[in-house]
């Protein structure tokens, strides 16, 4: 099929199905993935190079936009103080569950590590509506969840970058190789920090004076691509570089003019990101899910219970009571965008196969459908039992 027609169909279906799903009260990415599944069942070949490239741009701009628009370094410092222990427990427990589950099913060491990493991040976007409806967003446990969500995405991205670097060796690296991996990561970070701190702010004072059209937007776009490329030069993955590039621009006023932010958001969420999610849908092997019955079920149970137990233990250590700890654990169960980027990259690099990929996609879908309902139940349970602490 003509590639232009493929793009048109993907974007059209992704937007229409996302709208229907959003109006039904679920996250739009389910609709975007459903568009891919639907088109895959009909006629589009998911191995199309151009679609795969657009999908990579989607993953890059999903993480770049997260760093560029959503990260506030001052707020991050405050989050670390509030939510460090609950976040660490909420990462370590699901990571262990993912790793052990992989071991139990005799997957290779790298696949087990990857499952652990893919179980670790959180996407509490779907929990927010429930927290608002039940007036829990402004309570202490609600703000701890918000702080923790951003922290554990960052920890997840760090773990993912280490894993990707290790995967390039195709075996468990020696201590020397691990030092090389760490060294490359540190050098990349130092370069990006210098660029973001000293070079980019000066660069933009010249860019805004350029006569050519859309100079600031073009350079913000270029910095996304540049940081993605530079990460690859240092054996990291492009999406990690894009995220760090976004963070580097997040404090530069001229790069964050409202108009420019809207254009970056438009090209990301309007075009590239829906194609990325639809491509995930296209890549799902439905027969692999059917064949992986028990494994897929255990992936769902272990990933969700890992977050629940880790979050519960962490908030208990931090001094919360049982009911609030339970609310925190359930609120941290949903997974979405970042996890999908991880598994998409993992599959692309050949670290995981169709069985793990499809099972984790299924887990993500179940998590965003089930978590808000469970969260509502536990909050109502707490209110009924008359606890007054918040």
């Amino acid at each position, binding site marked *: 099929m003509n590639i232009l027609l493929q793009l048109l169909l993907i974007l059209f279906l992704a937007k229409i199905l996302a709208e229907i799903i959003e109006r039904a009260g679920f996250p739009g990415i389910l609709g975007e993935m459903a568009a891919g599944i639907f088109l895959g069942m009909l006629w589009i070949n998911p191995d199309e190079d151009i679609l795969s490239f657009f999908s990579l741009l989607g993953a890059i701009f999903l993480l770049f936009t997260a760093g560029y628009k959503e990260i506030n370094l001052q*707020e991050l410092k405050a989050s670390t103080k509030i939510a460090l222990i609950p976040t660490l427990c909420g990462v370590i427990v699901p990571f262990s569950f993912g790793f052990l589950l992989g071991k139990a099913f005799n997957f290779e060491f790298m696949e087990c590590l990857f499952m652990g990493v893919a179980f670790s991040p959180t996407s509490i976007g779907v929990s927010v509506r429930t927290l608002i409806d039940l007036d829990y*967003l402004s309570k202490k446990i*609600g703000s701890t969840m918000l702080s923790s969500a951003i922290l554990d995405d960052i920890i997840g991205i760090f773990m993912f970058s280490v894993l990707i670097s290790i995967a390039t060796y195709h075996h468990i690296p020696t201590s020397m190789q691990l030092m090389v991996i760490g060294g490359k990561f540190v050098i990349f970070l130092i370069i990006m920090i210098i660029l973001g701190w000293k070079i980019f702010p000066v660069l933009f004072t010249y860019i*805004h004076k350029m006569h050519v059209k859309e100079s600031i937007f073009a350079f913000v776009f270029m910095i996304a691509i540049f940081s993605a490329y530079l990460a690859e030069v240092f054996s990291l993955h492009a999406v990690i570089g894009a995220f760090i590039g976004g963070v580097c621009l997040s404090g530069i006023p001229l790069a964050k*003019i409202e108009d420019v932010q809207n254009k970056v958001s438009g090209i990301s969420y309007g075009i590239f990101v829906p194609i990325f999610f639809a491509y995930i849908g296209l890549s799902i092997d439905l027969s692999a899910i059917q064949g992986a019955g028990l494994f897929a079920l255990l992936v769902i149970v272990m990933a969700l219970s890992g977050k629940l137990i880790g979050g519960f233990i962490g908030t208990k250590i931090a001094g919360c009571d049982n009911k609030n700890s339970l609310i925190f654990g359930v609120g941290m169960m949903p997974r979405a965008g970042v996890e999908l980027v991880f598994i998409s990259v993992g599959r692309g690099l050949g670290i995981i196969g169709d069985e793990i990929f499809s099972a984790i996609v299924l887990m993500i879908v179940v998590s965003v459908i089930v978590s808000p309902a469970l969260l509502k139940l536990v909050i109502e349970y707490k209110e009924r039992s008359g606890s007054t602490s918040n």
Partner: protein
Amino acid sequence: MTIDYSKLIVAEIMTKDVMSVGENTTIVDLLELFGKYHYHSYPVISQAGELVGIISEDIVLEILMFNQMPACGHTHLSVIRSCSDVAGGIMTTHPVTVSQDANLSETADLMLKHHVHRVYVVEQGKLVGILSKRDIVNEICKRRE
């Protein structure tokens, strides 16, 4: 007579008497300010007297309408803002600033090209004025008369 705007500097036409708010100004007080005056945004000044952010009508509207917004509008940052009750927690922390001696035509070009409605004039981090598109238009009209 043709006026050469390239020789004008921002300090000549900026509004010097600026109404600002502190980081601890409550949202209730901010709403009162927006109701009482016609300004579209207020600069936020730290205790050290430095410009640290701005509160625009867009932010206030976002907070007021937060509960009614579709779920896809709940970004991490907007959720954090909705939980705060003081200016420091909801402000935009990256206002576009220029110095007093910035060239007016270059500043106007920036505002036109990138749809920036007003820029904040600072000297060593301290706010000394605001320049809006309206200020520039008024000045040009005045000089044409």
